[in-house]
């Protein structure tokens, strides 16, 4: 299944490259393509190893540390993909149509990211071929079950949200109209499903109060994950603005958009930081200070560099300044990613008694998948009417 995905994606990319009459300025250069091919080749080798040798021989996972970088990458990927539901909700439910130009690229990003997250989740299973079991063997006490169900349904929603672009390209105008009539309920379903599974990725860790460091274990993990996903989603939307201006060949976005998004991101981050710090204080987590100095450092990096700094920075971008906003947005994403690495990796190390570091095969597969994501985005952006044409 995943191999097919690989080959398909690669075919699309090559096709996009050959079709050199692009109307966009997102150049796929030969060097980039070579680098990508190398990453894909190594990734394909790593994947074959994983499928034939098993998890024990190819990963550094163990009975003491059964979840590794793939779960962490999934947690981060899902946060970065939340722009899809946030922007769709803002544009269609709250009717802020000013943001419409960046909706398509954001939904495309989300769609690709969800495919990757699902691919990694399946890859991480001991029995990947049974990935469909949760969908038929319901176990409603399990967060993992809820997530699987939501992911499957939300993928359908994202496909419905993005398919008008494809149909427009193919000239199926009837289909586009039919889909547009369904927009409201589809978007609403997307917002609901996302709220559920974005928070549930945090709920995954509620069952391990004795394993996760008190800096990161809290009963409000689902709320924190939802909030930080909103921050990350808005951050991605900001990045999408910059991309838009690069890709749409000189066409400029409405001048109010970047400051507006920056303000929203800043407020969302502020809310997140307040909730996060209040929770740390209320639970008395300072008692864990100095037990593992490197965890203290990790916490400091997460909160100061990853949340407080970008919140203040974004709050000061009053005039439209897409590039400054993009730099701040990257910091936001870094902070969210760091929080999730802490929850799913670093914060678990002391109690597990082993220092898990991923094997190069685990990393190679991850990088190859991310590379595929980027290439598919570029290919789709060049072939389909994602950005306005010049």
């Amino acid at each position, binding site marked *: 299944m995943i191999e097919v995905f690989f080959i398909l994606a690669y075919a699309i990319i090559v096709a996009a490259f050959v079709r050199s009459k692009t109307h966009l300025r997102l150049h796929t250069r030969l060097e980039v393509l070579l680098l990508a091919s190398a990453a894909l080749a190594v990734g394909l080798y790593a994947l074959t190893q994983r499928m034939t040798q098993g998890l024990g021989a190819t990963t550094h996972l163990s009975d003491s540390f059964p979840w590794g970088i793939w779960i962490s990458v999934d947690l981060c990927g899902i946060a970065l993909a939340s722009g899809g539901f946030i922007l769709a909700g803002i544009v269609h439910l709250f009717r802020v149509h000013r943001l419409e130009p960046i909706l398509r690229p954001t939904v495309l990003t989300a769609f690709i990211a969800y495919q990757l997250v699902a691919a990694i989740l399946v890859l991480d299973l*001991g029995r990947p071929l049974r990935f469909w079991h949760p969908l038929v063997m319901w176990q409603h006490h399990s967060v993992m079950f*809820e997530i699987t169900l939501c992911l499957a349904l939300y993928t359908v929603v994202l496909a419905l949200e993005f398919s008008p672009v494809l149909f427009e390209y193919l000239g199926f105008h009837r289909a586009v109209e039919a889909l547009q009539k369904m927009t409201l309920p589809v978007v609403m379903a997307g917002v609901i499903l996302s709220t559920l599974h974005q928070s549930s990725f945090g709920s995954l860790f509620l*069952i391990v109060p004795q394993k996760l460091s008190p800096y990161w274990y809290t009963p409000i993990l689902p709320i924190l994950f939802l909030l930080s996903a909103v921050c990350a989603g808005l951050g991605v939307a900001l990045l999408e603005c910059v991309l838009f201006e690069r890709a749409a060949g000189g066409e400029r976005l409405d001048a109010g958009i970047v400051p507006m998004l920056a303000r929203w991101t800043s407020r969302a981050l502020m809310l997140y930081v307040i909730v996060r710090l209040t929770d740390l204080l209320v639970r008395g987590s300072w008692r864990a200070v100095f037990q593992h100095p490197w965890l203290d450092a990790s916490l400091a990096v997460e909160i100061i560099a990853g949340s407080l700094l970008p919140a203040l920075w974004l709050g000061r971008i009053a005039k439209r300044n897409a590039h400054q906003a993009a730099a701040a947005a990257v910091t936001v994403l870094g902070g969210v990613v760091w929080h999730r690495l802490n929850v799913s990796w670093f914060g678990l190390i002391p109690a597990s008694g082993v220092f898990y570091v991923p094997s190069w095969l685990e990393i190679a597969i991850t990088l190859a998948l991310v590379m595929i994501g980027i290439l598919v985005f570029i290919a789709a952006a060049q072939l389909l009417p994602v950005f306005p044409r010049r």
Partner: protein
Amino acid sequence: MTRRTFLRHSTVGALGACAVCAGVADGSIAASAATDATRIGTLVDVTRCIGCRACVRACNQRNGLPQPEKPSTVWNGPVEELNFGRWTTVNLQGTPANGAAVPVKRQCMHCLEPACVSVCPVAALQQLPNGVVMYRKERCIGCRYCMFACPFGIPKFEWEASLDPEIGKCQFCAQHAVFTGPACAQACPTGALKFGSRQALLAEAKARIHVRPERYRDHVYGEHEAGGTAWLYLSSRSFSDLGFNTQLPRFGLPRLTWVALKLVPGVVIALVIVLTSVSFRMGRLAQQAAVHDRT
């Protein structure tokens, strides 16, 4: 009403709706497990264990697990970790500062409210009415959430298998056609392991402590740990000294997840209501604005 004030009102409304749903959806998980008379259990009296590992050999044999080449005891053999092919083991435990090390048996505790069962997305782990936690390999997808969640580190993964790994763990020998109690308890030559009804065993454990307070700590490990377990331990040494986790909550861990998961229906209903009204209201406002612009 402008867009901004409407947004403010609707946020308040949404939070309120969520709170109401959270309250309505409040229900508790069965709390009667600890006193249920149908639950079986095993009492491990650490003071009676001589470290012969007869229980380990019996377990390996009954469950078709690999036997070590040389039969060993804790006194002459290596330290044996639990793994996919070893569901129980006995090792010397205890910090030397507190006296000579003593042999301690380990296996699945068969929690009354098992974390592993609650997290398994496909119900591959299942609790029988008598409390035994069984594994049904034909369902398992190998997600390893059970290993992650178990507070005692019990489920083990078949790391070597490429495409069909399974989970290995003690199932109280209840997976066999005729259930006559666990093989280990039958093999124990000293009576350190005693199989029976959990209620009766708990009473017996307390009686032993009462009669010989100089011999036992006043603590039955497993009475309350993680909401109580079917396997109960008696010891002369403090349990934390023997490598047991004594910091576990006194309630069943699944509760921690259920607090969040049970809100799902309420959240869905609240969001449907809030989002529909938001969308409707915003649509009206947009229309009005359009009309206003034209005039």
